[in-house]
Every structure is written in structure tokens, then in C-alpha cells.
């Protein structure tokens, strides 16, 4: 609590991407203290050197240049007690502000407490810097009405229409146990240990209020969200997200990413809607597919990422002829065939071991932010699910939709306050 009072409003960039210089109180244990590589002048600065500000108009972790690692977790709220929910969100906010600054989750820290008490930080990030950690929260449909239709927290009338359950798409193979959720937290960082540490500590703090419903680890970002980043490759070996919305395209972001005043309830103005889809790739059959066919399926050259009608990655594909197949991914996902719909994608590759049949259990954990899924993700996915040549090699096994509110400006604000106040 004390911690939150001393956090300044530093680093409130328009897009929340500026690395903020946090005003740290002198009694806060820096995680880097005594750790390897600690600077001679006290290591707190080291711990926070690559920190991304938690505070800002927008939540960090959306247009923030995509970090390399993901730990995503969806929770069910298991209490009907509104005060308990608010209390947890306050505790989460305090811990999130600390952890994104490279500090331990609690003020006593992993090793600073008394021996008889469990530590208020789990310790696996001791000595590690902030690692660009961002924590982004979203609220799912179940928070407004649970599975039985009950309005547990008296907020059913605040549910945005845009937070509609996604329709069933042809070919969906969704597993309910790894889909949905009342609250989600997306942790992205350059270091997987830091992302896991953050999620683990939030899950710990949430005991009794939330229950972990499902979670996903991701490696290797599959999208660039900034023009400063190269376009990475998915596990099919293709560049992914060439036509993604980017942080620098502020006019496009206002049109396609951020919820505007009047779009829905005020508490979401400045926020964004998140759709997650876990897309299993049938790697082995793909790997037996000839290069030419692979390129036809995507509509792009595998090496350069250029559309088959062009020579360079960022050439605009020419969809007038048939050089790009009618079922090619690049055509079906293109804004011009989807009423101009754009998405900000920041998905990750995943490998969850193997599946018992000798196949990699691998694919893409698709993450997309947008102003209104009904006008963006849903029409695009409807078209893809019906016609995409890629469907032979993929299965959508998990799905989620969440309303991610705007960022927190003041240190005495907390996650969910504008919704639950």
C-alpha cells in the first residue's frame, strides 16, 4: 500500500510504451540487489533499467513492442463477494506495479520477511531485471453474468455489447477447459522466468477469489507491433504479421484499436478488446508439403515474406488477378476483403511437449486487440474458417474474448475500479 503512494506518474506516454523512471521509495527491495551483474552504485537502477511503465493512458502490453516471451493466464472468479474481488484487484495492481518495475511482488520481498512466514514474493526472479515485463488485464463475459446467468457483482448492465461471445466458426475444435475465463492477465517479457514469476505471484495473491482456469506459455513473438521490429516467423516458417497495426500508426490505432468515447460504456473508453485463439498446427503434414504449395497457401514467398505479386515484404499484395489464390491466407485476411477491418496481433508460438502420437503439440497462440471484435475479428475469422487453404493444417482448440480497460493513471487507482466502482 505504502508502495503505491510513492509511485510517480512517470512514463505516461501516449501509448504507454515509454520506459518510465519510477520514483522508488528508499525501503523497497530491488530485485537486482546483490544479484549477478549488479551495478556498483546500488543495483535498483539495474533492476529497473529495462522497465516499461505500468502507468499510462493505455495499458502496456498492447502496442508495446512485442516482447519475446508470453505467459497468459485465464481465471474463473470463484466468489460472489464483490469486496473480495475488489480487494484482490487492488492487491494485484500493487504487485503488478512493483513487478513491472523490476521489484519483488510484495514489500518484504522473497527473502526479507520473517522466517516463520511464507515470503510475499516467490523468489525465482531474484537478481533478474524488469525484462520489459508488461501485465495486461482483461475482463471476460463471465464476470458480468456467470454460466448460470447470475449477475454476481451487479455489473451486468455495464457489459459492453462489443464483449459478445464469439460465434462458433466452421472447423472449431474448442476445448472448453482451456477456453474463456472471467479475468485474464497477459504477461509479456524478454525473459520467460520473469513472465512466469509475475503470473505465478498474481495467481498466489488471488487464492480464494479466483481459480486458475487455463494458462499458456509462448515463445518467439509472431507479430511485430512496431516498425522498429523485424517481422518474425511462425512455426510454419512464414513471416507473420507483416500487415499488422503498428504503434507508430496512431491514426489507424484510433480507428481500429482503441475503444472511442460513445462506442460503449465509459469504463471501456480508451481500452481495447482482446481475442485469444490457440491454434494447433499439424506440423508434420505441413513439413511434407512442397514449398510451392506452402507459398500458395499463404500467398507470400517463404523467404522474403513478399506477396506473390510483389518482390519485397511490405509490397501491397495485388488481389485483382489469380496469382494470389482465392483461398490464400493473405487474401482472405486482407482488409480490403473484410470491410477494412484491421487487427493488432501480438501472438506467440507455443510448443506444449508432444501429443502421445509422436507429434509436436505446437502452434500459434493468437492474440489480437481491436476496437470491436464483432466488426473485426469475427468477420475476418468467418471468412478464414470457411475458405482458408491453411485450415487443412490448423485446428482452433481454445478461444477467449476479454474487455481490456484503459490504463491506470494514478497510483491510487487500481485494476477494475472504473468497472466496479
Amino acid at each position, binding site marked *: 500500500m505504502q508502495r503505491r503512494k510513492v509511485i510517480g506518474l512517470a512514463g505516461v506516454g501516449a501509448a504507454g510504451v515509454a520506459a518510465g523512471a519510477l520514483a522508488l521509495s528508499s525501503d523497497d527491495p530491488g530485485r537486482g540487489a546483490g544479484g549477478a551483474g549488479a551495478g556498483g552504485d546500488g543495483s535498483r537502477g539495474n533492476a529497473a533499467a529495462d522497465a516499461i511503465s505500468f502507468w499510462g493512458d493505455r495499458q502496456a502490453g498492447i502496442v508495446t513492442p512485442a516482447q519475446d516471451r508470453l505467459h497468459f493466464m485465464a481465471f474463473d472468479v*470463484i466468489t460472489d463477494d464483490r469486496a473480495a474481488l475488489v480487494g484482490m484487484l487492488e492487491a494485484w495492481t500493487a504487485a503488478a506495479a512493483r513487478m513491472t518495475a523490476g521489484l519483488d511482488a510484495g514489500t518484504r520481498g522473497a527473502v526479507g*520477511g*520473517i*522466517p*516463520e*512466514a*511464507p515470503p510475499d514474493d516467490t523468489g525465482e526472479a531474484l537478481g533478474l531485471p524488469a525484462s520489459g515485463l508488461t501485465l495486461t488485464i482483461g475482463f471476460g463475459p463471465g464476470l458480468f453474468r456467470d454460466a448460470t446467468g447470475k449477475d454476481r457483482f451487479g455489473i451486468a448492465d455495464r457489459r459492453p455489447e462489443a464483449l459478445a461471445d464469439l460465434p462458433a466458426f466452421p472447423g472449431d475444435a474448442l476445448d472448453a477447459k482451456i477456453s474463456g475465463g472471467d479475468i485474464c492477465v497477459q504477461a509479456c517479457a524478454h525473459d520467460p522466468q520473469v513472465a512466469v514469476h509475475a503470473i505465478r505471484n498474481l495467481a*498466489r495473491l488471488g*487464492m*480464494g*477469489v479466483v*481459480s486458475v482456469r487455463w494458462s499458456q506459455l509462448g515463445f518467439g513473438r509472431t507479430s511485430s507491433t512496431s516498425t522498429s521490429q523485424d517481422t518474425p516467423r511462425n512455426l510454419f516458417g512464414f513471416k507473420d504479421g507483416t500487415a499488422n497495426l503498428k504503434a507508430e500508426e496512431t491514426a489507424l490505432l484510433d480507428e481500429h484499436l482503441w475503444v472511442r468515447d460513445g462506442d460503449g460504456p465509459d469504463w471501456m473508453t480508451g481500452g481495447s478488446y482482446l481475442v485469444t485463439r490457440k491454434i494447433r498446427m499439424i506440423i508434420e503434414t505441413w513439413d511434407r508439403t512442397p514449398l510451392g504449395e506452402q507459398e500458395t497457401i499463404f500467398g507470400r514467398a517463404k523467404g522474403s515474406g513478399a506477396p506473390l505479386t510483389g518482390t519485397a515484404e511490405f509490397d501491397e499484395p495485388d488481389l485483382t488477378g489469380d496469382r494470389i489464390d482465392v483461398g490464400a491466407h493473405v487474401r482472405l485476411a486482407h482488409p480490403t476483403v473484410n470491410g477494412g477491418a484491421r487487427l493488432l496481433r501480438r501472438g506467440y508460438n507455443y510448443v506444449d511437449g508432444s501429443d502421445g502420437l509422436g507429434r509436436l503439440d505446437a502452434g500459434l497462440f493468437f492474440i489480437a486487440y481491436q476496437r470491436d471484435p464483432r466488426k473485426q475479428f469475427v468477420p475476418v475469422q468467418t471468412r478464414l474458417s470457411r475458405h482458408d487453404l491453411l485450415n487443412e493444417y490448423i485446428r482452433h482448440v481454445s478461444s477467449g474474448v476479454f474487455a481490456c480497460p484503459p490504463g491506470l493513471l494514478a497510483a491510487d487507482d487500481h485494476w477494475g475500479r472504473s468497472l466496479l466502482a
Partner: protein
Amino acid sequence: MRTARILTAATAAALLLAACGDNDGGTTGDEDAAIAVSASDTACDVAEGESAAGTVTFTIANKGSKVTEFYVYADGDRVMGEVENIAPGLSRELIVELAAGTYETACKPGMIGKGIRNGFTVTGSSTPLTEDAKLAQATTDYQRYVKSQTGALIDKTTEFVTAVKAGKVDQAKALFPVARTYWERIEPVAEIFGDLDPAIDGREGDQEEGQEFTGFHRIEKDLWTTGDISQDGPVADKLLVDVQKIVDLANSTTLSPLQLANGAKELLDEVATGKITGEEDRYSHTDLWDFAANVEGSQAAVSALRPALEEKDAALVTTLDERFASVEAALEKHRDGDGWKPHTALTEADLKTLSDEINALAEPISRIAALVASGK
């Protein structure tokens, strides 16, 4: 034995209570006039609803058809005294020291649930206990709990062993989870005596080199897999000897407040790691009996610490009360008669719910040790 031990526990609190009783004058002279309790399967008639502070004696007659228990509870179901395992037709006596205040009595026909409750008022004066005295009192209270449980443990283990040696498979199967209930409630005490715990409660495959697979689970395996217990006589005899040893040790050991706090947490950890998964009773699938007993034992330890905790962190006590009630309610859905459904009858969703409940309770319980240790 009992008197001597309570006096050696010689806390300021215990002496203080006794003093209050003596000084109260008048009605305290009727210590010998026991309060009659008539217990049946549906009723619990306590002859008097109040008493003067001091030593109070209840005589409980079980006129029903089920085995019953009798409890005196202080606020928050803190057990002030109890008699376990009163067979139909028998009478048992409970002698309990009570300071002025309001209490509840309870009969538990079938030994389940909250029991049939009655209010009980004790009049007189009493001085509030100091912080240290409250903690000292906690160890005394818990020691009394251990004593009541170990008494029933010996009785029920004896019955179980007798049934095994007589080759009565069905009877032994019925007694197995009942005897274990008393064991599981006080398991943190048992675990202090390292080498006896594996001999009594070790699971198959847990034995170290040279150790034999003995105890409850060895007999469980024979009862539920082959049904042939004809060779289990020596195992049964050893079980009873080991249980008697541990009971003697337990009753001569007083746990510190910190051990109580950690014990309450460890019992829930037992549930989270062994009972939710069905590992504990892998042949009989009676894990929910152990689950319930672990939770009851945890609650007993927390209840003993309650007066001290109320002063340190009243909000935590409220949370603990709510969460214990929530766990009980979740578990109650799986009751089967006077016992519990087999672990195998629960769905994955059922187990997830129970797991969430245990985590929700264990988290606040993990905070008790620091409060007790902080001494403020």
C-alpha cells in the same frame, strides 16, 4: 494422568481460571452435581442451560442407535472439551474448565456435521487473558483435543485390528476409514515422531531400503484387492502397538503455538497433495474421510489459537471462519449417509472445486504462523 498434565501445563491462564471458579463462591460448590445429557439420534437434551464458572461436569447417556460425540464449544467452535465415540447404551463423563461466557453444547449422533446444538451460559467473573497467556492457553486447549482424539484412535484401531485378526473383511472395511479419521485429525502431531509415521501410515512404495510395508495401507491393500487378510495378523498387531506408542508420545508432548499454526497449514497441504488426488487411499478410495478429518484437525488447531488471533488480526479470523464454512459446505455435497462418497465417484469438476476451496483456506492459514511468531 489428566489432572497432572493440565497442571504441568501450568499456564497462568489455567490457574487464573481455577481461581475465578473458587472465588466465585456460592454455586461453585456443586462441582460434583453433574449435568445430565440425554443424547439420541435426533435429540440432545442438556438438563441445565447454565452453570457457574469453574469445573463443570456433564454425564452423557447415549440412548440412540448411533455412536455419538459430545462437545462444549466456545466462540468460533473452539473445543473446550469433548467426548468422542460414545457407543449406544453407554454413558460417559466430560469434565471441563469453563470461564464465564457463552458456549454451545453439541451432540453428534453418527459423529457427523455440526451436531445438535444448545446454548450454555457460564456466569461469574473472569479477567481477560494477556497475550502470552492466550497463546499458552492455545497449547493447553489443543493438547486436550489431542487427548480426546488419541483416546478414540486407540479404541477404533483396536476394533479394526480385532476385526482384521478375526478375518471379518466387511467389518474391517467399515472400520478402516473411521479409525483413520482420528489419525488424520492429529497427523501433524504424529509426524513429529518421524519413524512411527511411516510404519503406521506409509503408502506402498514409500518405504526406504530395509523397511517393511506395514500399517493401515498394507491392510487396506489386502482388504480391497484380494480380500485375503488371513496373513495380516502380525501386521495388525504391529499397527496397534505402533499406534499405542505414538499416542503415548503425543500425550506427553505439548505443541508450541507456532507448531499449531504450522500444523493447521500442513493438514491442508496433506489434503491438497494427497487427498484431492486420491493417492492416500488408493485401494479403498476412502480419501474423503481423510479429507474431512484433516480439515477438522486444522480447524481444531486454528480454534485453539483463536483468542490470540482475534486480538492480532480480527479480520483474518473472520476470513478463516468463512473459508472453513465454505470448505465444509463444498465437502458436504459428497456425503453418503454417515460417511463419504468414494474418491472415484467425484468428477474432475468436483475435485477442482474442492481444490479451489482448500487453496482459498490454506492461503489465510499460511499467515497465522507469522502472527503467532511476531508476538505482537
